[in-house]
């Protein structure tokens, strides 16, 4: 055994060993993944533990619960979207945190450095430094981890903006320095903070400063940063890399000779102090950064960094020799304020001892300078105002003097003076008016800048009114007119988009009305349905891109609805067009959609969707093209898949889309709906919440939340959300009424109608959802038996209301009283409620074993069901298909049982159910026992229906007084075991899932009339006290379990 095996390097054995010891698929991960640092340490033998000193921020530390049981799990949570930049050490990628749905920057160590312990350690330090420095001017590091290939990476906030280097390069003249000084002050404050935490950057340069769209300034690339030893000097020589002289560029190094060097020289020579250029890393302290700050200031003031020789080598030599004469001369000639020149020169002193002590000192100086500039500006404004007052006073004084001195002159000049005075007054009035107009205009421009066109319109209307009230200059009037034109166009554009969006929310209850609404809205926005394509081109020519996208989506939606209805009619053999008389052909709709949105991929998608070509849809879903598609296209694909009966695939497509478009309202709204349909409550709620946060003013988002509450939560909360949804429709109108009178008038008419329509629609939907169907009703709605009693009382006292009867039928099925359910629902089969009633009655008849009647009823239900709206596993279509499948199994089995014949083992469970439904519980119990096998149903299963039915059969057999007491007891014990097995099935899931499933399963079990005898002690007295005790204990356990899930 101790001999060396000749197969030490046999790749076949290596593979076997890898299979044996690598983390495999079967790894249950019970021991939990080791930390990233531990794994890196395992690789290089040691790793860094950087702990920065506490900052003097003076704030109170948060109170932490050190006993928290929260743990982070290592997951494949980051999705790489592309590369941002590549440097010598690492690659910066753009990624997506799939857990939090946000974009991040991922920095990954390059492959060739994986084995370089020094660089690996530096990489970890960079992450730790970035993670511990918490300042608005420093990009926060979120996470440190290992990727699938065990390369270390860390994630940071994704900073969008431009580098200071790019902004400086764009500057036409170095004298344009005002805004750059503000940026510079922020850099100084950021570095001052880092210094206060004992960190020096060592590679400060404009290329490492990012300026965001809103002026936020962030210092990047802390890859060469160093934690100072207590004495204040970087402790680099202790473990200086052996590969001195290797040069690698930073991730943001430019091609202009400003590359950074690792090894003996860190940093960028054009900005570095002489001690750094000389390789004196052991002498570097905060003053090295101060020099670099001086270099940046030099570039802001003069347009170039201190050293600007041609070629890298020359720049390094200049930096090492501190050849700064050129820089000083440029500074002196820059025309900048002397304070700034003095500060730059101080920072650029060759001897560190002559420079300001640290960045805080520089920050103080620059802040003081900016304060002086501000003070000077304020003083100048005050002085200007004072001068104006003096002029007015002098004018008054002059007028008085003139009046007193000579009336003759006064009389002669009266007319002239009067004219001057009137003119002056008019000028003053005009000036004041222009100020007010300008103020309103500024409000409008600001609102327009942030895309708030409603506020912009209100402001520009105010400006217009003011402008109309007096005389103002042509220039400002033109500005007002221009903004007004833009605002009107934008509001119309948004209005068009909103109206198109509204169409997608229409309920299919009344297809004819839906058809009319689509056609009307299209006409309203200038598109004549059915018009020739050139006319369509003319109509949409002026449309903005977003409007075209919305129009394309609406046309797709319209075509899909048409397809649904046509397909469904064909499927049922019903006459097409019994619910709509389209005035526009579906061919025109599709052609128009292709015209509006000529994207070939979407064209292919339309063709696939309209021909219900599932394979083509799947090919489209699998194609790499989906990666580049806009959210609306992916949304259409998902809807098409769902309409083709594959909602799970629709969800998969939307989940991918969500990774790319986490802020798409429609993607989130549809994800919520689809998840709701497949009963994944947590995901459904999450996306409903996101949709609401994206469009808090959308009644559809609030409605979705209301529906979620109905199905999974609290009906009271559902009412609140519904009220909010309805109120929002009203608010929408109020908001729009602020718009121009013409637009408001037009819209108010439409919106009043919309409110009525949407309120009615929403109310109906909620009622329908609350009424529930096939187990989809409110789960916490209290005791269904009590609800049955209430509804029966309502029928007795309030007359035979159809809606009450429909709900009663549904609840009777829920409590297992199928015979009464069938009777109660029978009259509804000739009423508008027949669609719901047929489905529920078919279920009841099935459970009564009346398969032929159930089949006939099911046929009615299928005929009345609308394919698309009821699609999805949790939807009516799926429920009907499920019932159809059960009938297909049950009917031949019933025939075999009736006529004799052999049943295969695999049909045993189905056969047992059939036998139970046919009224032979003892035989059913025996069949179930055989089907489950000797140990009962112990393996992980997805559904507990069989166990539940088996338990019902065993209880029925146990209550059969014609049987021997011992047999009855055995049956009841078996019933408990099977209920327990079912309980185990539904409980062996994640907590969230278990809660939902338990509510769906355990609650009905507790109320099912077939189990009632086991809850009623007197009914079991004949079987002895032990039996009564056993059942009491059993139900107590269930109640406790349920209470735990609801806590």
């Amino acid at each position, binding site marked *: 055994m101790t001999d060396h095996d000749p197969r030490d390097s046999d790749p076949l054995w290596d593979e*076997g060993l890898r299979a044996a*010891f690598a983390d495999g698929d079967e790894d249950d991960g019970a021991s939990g993944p080791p930390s990233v640092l531990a794994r890196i340490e395992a690789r290089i*033998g040691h790793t860094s533990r950087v702990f920065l000193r506490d900052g003097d921020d003076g704030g109170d530390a948060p109170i932490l619960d050190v006993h928290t049981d929260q743990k982070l799990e290592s997951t494949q949570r980051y999705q790489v979207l592309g590369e941002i930049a590549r440097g010598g050490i690492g690659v910066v990628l753009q990624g997506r945190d799939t857990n939090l749905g946000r974009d991040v920057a991922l920095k990954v160590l390059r492959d060739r450095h994986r084995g370089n312990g020094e660089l690996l350690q530096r990489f970890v330090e960079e992450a730790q430094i970035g993670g511990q420095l918490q300042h608005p001017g420093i990009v926060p590091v979120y996470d440190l981890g290992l990727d699938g290939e065990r390369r270390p990476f860390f994630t940071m906030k994704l900073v969008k903006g431009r580098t200071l280097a790019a902004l400086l390069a764009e500057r036409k003249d170095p004298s344009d320095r005002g805004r750059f000084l503000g940026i510079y002050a922020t850099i100084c404050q950021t570095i001052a903070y880092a210094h206060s935490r004992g960190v020096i950057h060592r590679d400060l340069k404009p290329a490492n400063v990012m300026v965001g769209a809103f002026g936020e300034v962030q210092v990047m690339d802390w890859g060469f940063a160093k934690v100072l030893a207590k004495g204040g000097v970087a402790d680099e020589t202790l473990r200086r890399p052996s590969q001195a002289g290797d040069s690698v560029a930073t991730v943001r190094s430019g091609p202009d000779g400003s590359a950074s060097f690792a090894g003996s020289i860190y940093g960028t020579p054009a900005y570095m102090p002489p001690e750094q250029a000389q390789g004196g890393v052991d002498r570097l302290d905060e003053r090295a950064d101060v020099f670099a700050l001086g270099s940046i200031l030099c570039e802001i003031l003069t347009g170039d960094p201190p050293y600007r020789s041609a070629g890298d080598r020359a720049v390094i030599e200049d930096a090492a020799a501190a050849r700064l004469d050129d820089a000083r001369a440029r500074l002196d000639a820059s025309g900048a304020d002397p304070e700034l020149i003095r500060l730059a020169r101080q920072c650029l002193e060759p001897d560190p001892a002559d420079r300001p002590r640290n960045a805080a000192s520089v920050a103080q100086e620059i802040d003081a300078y900016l304060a002086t500039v501000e003070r000077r500006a304020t003083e100048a404004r005050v002085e200007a105002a004072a001068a104006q007052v003096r002029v007015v006073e002098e004018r008054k004084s002059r007028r008085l003097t003139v009046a007193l001195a000579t009336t003759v002159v006064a009389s002669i000049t009266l007319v002239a003076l009067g004219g001057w005075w009137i003119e002056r007054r008019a000028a003053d009035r005009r000036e004041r008016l222009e100020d007010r107009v300008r103020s309103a205009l500024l409000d409008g421009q600001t609102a327009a800048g942030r895309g708030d066109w409603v506020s912009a319109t209100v402001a520009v209307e105010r400006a217009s009114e003011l402008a109309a009230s007096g005389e103002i200059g042509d220039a400002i009037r033109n500005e007002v007119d221009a903004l007004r034109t833009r605002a009107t166009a934008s509001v119309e554009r948004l209005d068009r988009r909103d109206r198109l969006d509204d169409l997608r929310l229409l309920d299919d209850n009344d297809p004819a009305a839906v058809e009319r609404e689509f056609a009307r809205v299209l006409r309203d926005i200038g598109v004549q349905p059915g018009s020739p394509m050139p006319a369509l081109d003319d109509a949409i020519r002026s449309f903005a891109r977003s409007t075209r996208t919305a129009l394309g989506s609406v046309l797709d939606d319209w075509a899909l609805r048409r397809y649904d209805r046509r397909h469904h009619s064909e499927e049922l053999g019903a006459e097409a067009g019994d619910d709509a008389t389209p005035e526009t052909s579906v061919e025109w709709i599709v052609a128009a959609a292709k015209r509006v949105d000529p994207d070939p991929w979407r064209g292919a998608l339309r063709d696939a969707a309209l021909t219900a070509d599932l394979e083509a849809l799947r090919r489209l879903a699998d194609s790499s093209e989906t990666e580049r598609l806009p959210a609306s296209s992916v949304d259409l694909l998902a809807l098409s898949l769902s309409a083709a009966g594959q909602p799970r695939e629709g969800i998969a497509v939307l989940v991918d889309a969500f990774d790319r478009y986490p802020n798409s309202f429609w993607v989130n709204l549809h994800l919520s709906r689809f998840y709701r349909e497949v009963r994944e409550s947590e995901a459904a709620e999450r996306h409903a919440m996101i949709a609401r946060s994206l469009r808090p003013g959308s009644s559809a988002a609030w409605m979705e939340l209301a529906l979620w509450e109905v199905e999974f939560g609290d009906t009271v909360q559902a009412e609140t959300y519904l009220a909010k949804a309805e109120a929002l429709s009203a608010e929408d109108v109020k908001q729009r009424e602020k718009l121009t009178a013409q637009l408001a008038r037009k819209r108010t008419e439409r919106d009043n109608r919309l409110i009525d329509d949407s309120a009615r629609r929403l109310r109906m939907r909620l009622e329908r959802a609350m009424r529930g169907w096939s187990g989809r009703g409110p789960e916490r709605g209290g005791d269904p038996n009590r609800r049955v009693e209430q509804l029966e009382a309502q029928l007795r006292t309030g007359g035979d209301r159809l809606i009450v009867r429909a709900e009663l039928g549904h609840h009777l099925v829920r409590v297992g009283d199928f015979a009464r359910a069938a009777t109660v629902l029978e009259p509804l089969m000739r009423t508008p409620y027949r669609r719901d009633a047929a489905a529920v009655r078919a279920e009841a008849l099935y459970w009564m074993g009346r398969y032929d009647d159930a089949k006939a009823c099911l046929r009615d239900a299928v005929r009345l069901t609308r394919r698309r709206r009821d699609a999805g596993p949790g939807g009516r279509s799926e429920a009907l298909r499920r019932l159809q499948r059960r009938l297909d199994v049950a009917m031949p089995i019933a025939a075999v049982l009736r006529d004799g014949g052999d049943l295969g083992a695999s049909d045993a469970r189905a056969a047992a159910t059939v036998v139970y439904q046919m009224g032979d519980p003892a035989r059913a119990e025996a069949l179930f026992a055989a089907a489950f096998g000797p*140990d009962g149903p112990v*393996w992980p299963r*997805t559904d507990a229906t069989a166990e539940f039915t088996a338990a019902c059969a065993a209880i029925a057999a146990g209550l059969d007084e014609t049987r021997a007491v011992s047999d009855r007891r055995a049956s009841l014990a078996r019933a408990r075991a099977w209920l327990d097995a079912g309980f185990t099935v539904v409980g062996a899931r994640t907590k969230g899932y278990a809660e939902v499933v338990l509510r769906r399963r355990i609650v009905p079990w507790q109320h099912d009339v077939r189990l009632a005898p086991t809850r009623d002690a007197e009914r079991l007295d004949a079987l002895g006290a032990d039996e009564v005790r056993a059942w009491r204990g059993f139900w107590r356990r269930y109640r406790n379990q349920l209470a735990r899930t609801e806590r």
Partner: protein
Amino acid sequence: MSNDTCWTIVRGAADGDAGARSVFARTYLPVVRAYLLARWRNTGWLPHVDDASQDVFVDCFRDGGALGRVDPERRTQFRTFLFGIVRNVALRYEERVARDKLRQHATEFRPDEQPGREERLSHVFDRAWARSLLKRAGQRQADLASDDAARRRVELLQLRFREGMPIRDIAKRWGEDAAVVHHEYARARAEFKAALCDEIRFHDPQGAANVERECETLLALLRVDA
């Protein structure tokens, strides 16, 4: 574990021994699931994988079930035997659906309900089988490691194959001479091989004479394209 063979476990399970049944199920569930998942990937049967897995074991354990029919004297590999059971259960599910379709006079071809190719699926099963045995061999080696040195050799294999560390880095980390670690590495591999041979004997006691060849065969299964 050392005195048992898969046949004693099978016999115990067939006789209703709960412990044997538990060992049997724990050992073979991953292989069964891997096969069914591969067979029904992208088909409408995928949700039935759990049920079918259960049926495989119900089939095995019930009176007169598959395990009761096993004849350990026959020169049959247990892998082949288990493959037959799993495949039969899968076919039964598929047949039942097909029968339902016929009842409905459905004639259309449903590409989403066609199982994967049988030839490819047997490869999947073989590979899952090989992985399962190799993992058990690794576990067996760890269980048999009675002293610190042996446990360190298991750790060595883990560092080498789980963490992907070169031997010289492991030596550096442990502060050992690389030659010493290389020597230990060779011992660790030999011990693993011995554990794997035990594992193969467990599953095919009659093929003990050819255990070397069986090792090679098993490792070759890892490379079968699926």
